């Protein structure tokens, strides 16, 4: 006996044959792509979350169902029809059960109780037991290549669907109003509405097919999936749901592109109308989301720009205030310094020994104070770009020697050896002699003395490639890797620097760097680590 086959040619690649209307491809592929796109999008942003995993499983199951459906339309083999049809009868209630778990986990943030699991198990059990029997599919009608459904497929599955959809709706109605924030309530509402819309459209399509034997109608039910995807995309954009940062509209654009390109494949005018209407709905949804996103983005940018402007004004005012205070304090300190100097030199009469010591200490401390305030003011000027530099050509070698000699007493006071090594040659530098002397050389050598408890400080001057190179090397506390990172930054002090130098403002090296760079030079530091000393090197262009 020849093998009985349905009255059309065998399918190609399982999904193509003359029996598959173009609308079937359209409805199934759009639904599958949008479902998988949404599932993968949410899963990719949070692969460890249980809800994203369940969403992915849910859309995967749906995609298998949709692909089986295309196969059913395409095939002319009765055995394939019977097997695929049976699988579909099983997958549909499983999709519903998954949707129930998904929404439960989302709302209650925990798995359902054992009792609920048992109830769902009992609800689905008849399907598993009777799936291979005639209670599920009674026979196959060869002319339409369709299965004749038994009570299991025709009635029981729809009872299961109804119970689960009702359970989802009741769960949402009971739990959503009690959620703490408006945002949470809206996300849950969109999520639940999307799920129920999809499930209802899916079921109603299939019920129509089962009872009218017109399975073309049931294809419209699949359009519930893009609606579900659109609602999820909207939730992502509007409420930043599912921890996704990227605009979910991208997904809608892909669906839309498929919708538009599929118009090319349609030959019947009626189908074109349906697809065009659906494309229009998608365009409206996408347009709304995009316009809303753009509006919000523009509003945010304007807000940020306004805040940035206000911040700049506040900074300027604060800087002005700091400058004013700095100048005032410096003025008072300078007067004190003059007074102490006069007292120390005996201008106000002879002082006895204890008073002499006291006045000298006060004079030293006032000088430190003046230096600190000067540093702060200079750093502030440097930042605002209002520092002016004199331009004169001078003997850099003499400046280095002069600075070393000025600081020699303080080195000797600490018992340190301070040496200067100068290689032969001319060292003419063009720039601001005072700033290079006081704020760069003096700063570096002074630091070396302050941060060296014992040993030596060695200053060397050499010339290479038209550059005068000063190196200040000490046997002091050294610099840790952590401190190196912010050595020349504004207010950048070593972690323990205040333990050694209580007057450190953290601005000395920042100012030195600014001055050296203003002279087209470079400044750098190296150290083998804490306790191993350090070397600071300044390179300046030399004109001779």
């Amino acid at each position, binding site marked *: 006996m020849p093998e*009985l086959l349905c*009255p059309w040619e065998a399918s190609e690649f399982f999904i193509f044959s003359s029996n598959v209307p173009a609308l079937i491809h359209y409805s199934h592929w759009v639904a599958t792509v949008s479902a998988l796109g949404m599932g993968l999008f949410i899963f990719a942003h*949070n692969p460890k*979350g*249980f*809800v994203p995993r369940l969403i992915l499983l849910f859309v995967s199951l749906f995609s298998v169902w949709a692909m089986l459906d295309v196969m059913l339309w395409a095939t002319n083999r*009765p*055995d*394939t029809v*019977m*097997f695929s049809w*049976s*699988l579909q009868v*099983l997958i549909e209630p*499983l999709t519903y059960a998954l949707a129930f778990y998904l929404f439960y*986990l*989302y709302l*209650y*943030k*925990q*798995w359902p109780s*054992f009792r609920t*699991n*048992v109830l769902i*198990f009992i609800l*689905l*059990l008849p*399907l*598993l*037991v009777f*799936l*291979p029997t*005639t209670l599920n*599919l*009674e*026979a*196959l*009608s*060869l*002319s339409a290549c369709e299965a*004749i459904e038994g009570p299991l497929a025709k009635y029981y599955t729809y009872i299961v669907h109804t119970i689960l959809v009702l359970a989802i709706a009741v769960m949402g109605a009971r739990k959503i109003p009690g959620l703490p924030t408006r945002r*949470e309530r809206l*996300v849950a509402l969109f999520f639940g509405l999307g799920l129920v819309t999809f499930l209802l459209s899916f079921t109603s399509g299939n019920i129509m097919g089962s009872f009218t034997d017109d399975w073309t109608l049931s294809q419209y039910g699949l359009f519930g999936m893009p609606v579900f995807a659109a609602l999820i995309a909207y939730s992502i954009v509007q409420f930043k*749901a*599912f*921890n996704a940062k990227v605009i979910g509209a991208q997904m809608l654009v892909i669906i839309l592109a498929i919708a538009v390109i599929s118009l090319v494949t349609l030959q019947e005018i009626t189908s074109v109308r349906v697809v065009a209407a659906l494309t229009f709905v998608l365009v409206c949804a996408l347009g709304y989301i995009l316009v809303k996103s753009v509006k919000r983005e523009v509003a945010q940018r304007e807000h940020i720009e306004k805040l940035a402007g206000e911040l700049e004004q506040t900074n300027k005012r604060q800087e002005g205030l700091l400058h004013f205070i700095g100048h005032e304090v410096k003025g008072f300190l300078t007067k004190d310094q003059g007074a102490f100097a006069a007292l120390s030199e005996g201008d106000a009469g002879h002082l006895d020994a204890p008073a002499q010591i006291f006045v000298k200490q006060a004079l030293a401390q006032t000088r430190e104070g003046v230096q600190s305030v000067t540093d702060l003011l200079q750093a502030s000027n440097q930042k605002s770009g209002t520092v002016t530099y004199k331009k004169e050509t001078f003997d850099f070698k003499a400046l280095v020697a002069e600075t070393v000699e000025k600081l020699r007493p303080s080195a000797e006071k600490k018992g340190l050896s301070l040496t200067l090594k100068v290689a032969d040659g001319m060292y003419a530098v063009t720039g601001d002699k005072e700033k290079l002397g006081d704020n760069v050389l003096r700063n570096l050598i002074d630091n070396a003395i302050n941060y060296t408890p014992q040993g030596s400080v060695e200053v060397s001057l050499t010339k290479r490639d038209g550059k005068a190179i000063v190196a200040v090397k000490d046997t002091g506390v050294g610099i840790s890797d952590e401190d190196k990172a912010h050595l020349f930054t504004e207010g950048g002090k070593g972690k323990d620097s205040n333990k050694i130098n209580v007057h450190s403002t953290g601005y000395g090296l920042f100012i030195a760097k600014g001055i050296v760079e203003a002279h087209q030079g470079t400044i750098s530091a190296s150290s083998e680590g804490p306790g191993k000393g350090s070397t600071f090197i300044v390179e300046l262009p030399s004109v001779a």
Partner: protein
Amino acid sequence: MPEPSNHSMTTSSRYLIVLFVVAVLASVAITYWTTMVKQDFVILNDLEEEEDSL
């Protein structure tokens, strides 16, 4: 999105889900055996009737 704070599932629920998955696989396997392998189903050959009615 608020994530489930308590993912713990009771051991009995886990067993139930494993049992369910095994039952699904068994049901699919038996269906495959009866339809694709044994071809144990009724085919209503209504092709001729349709042609007659035409």
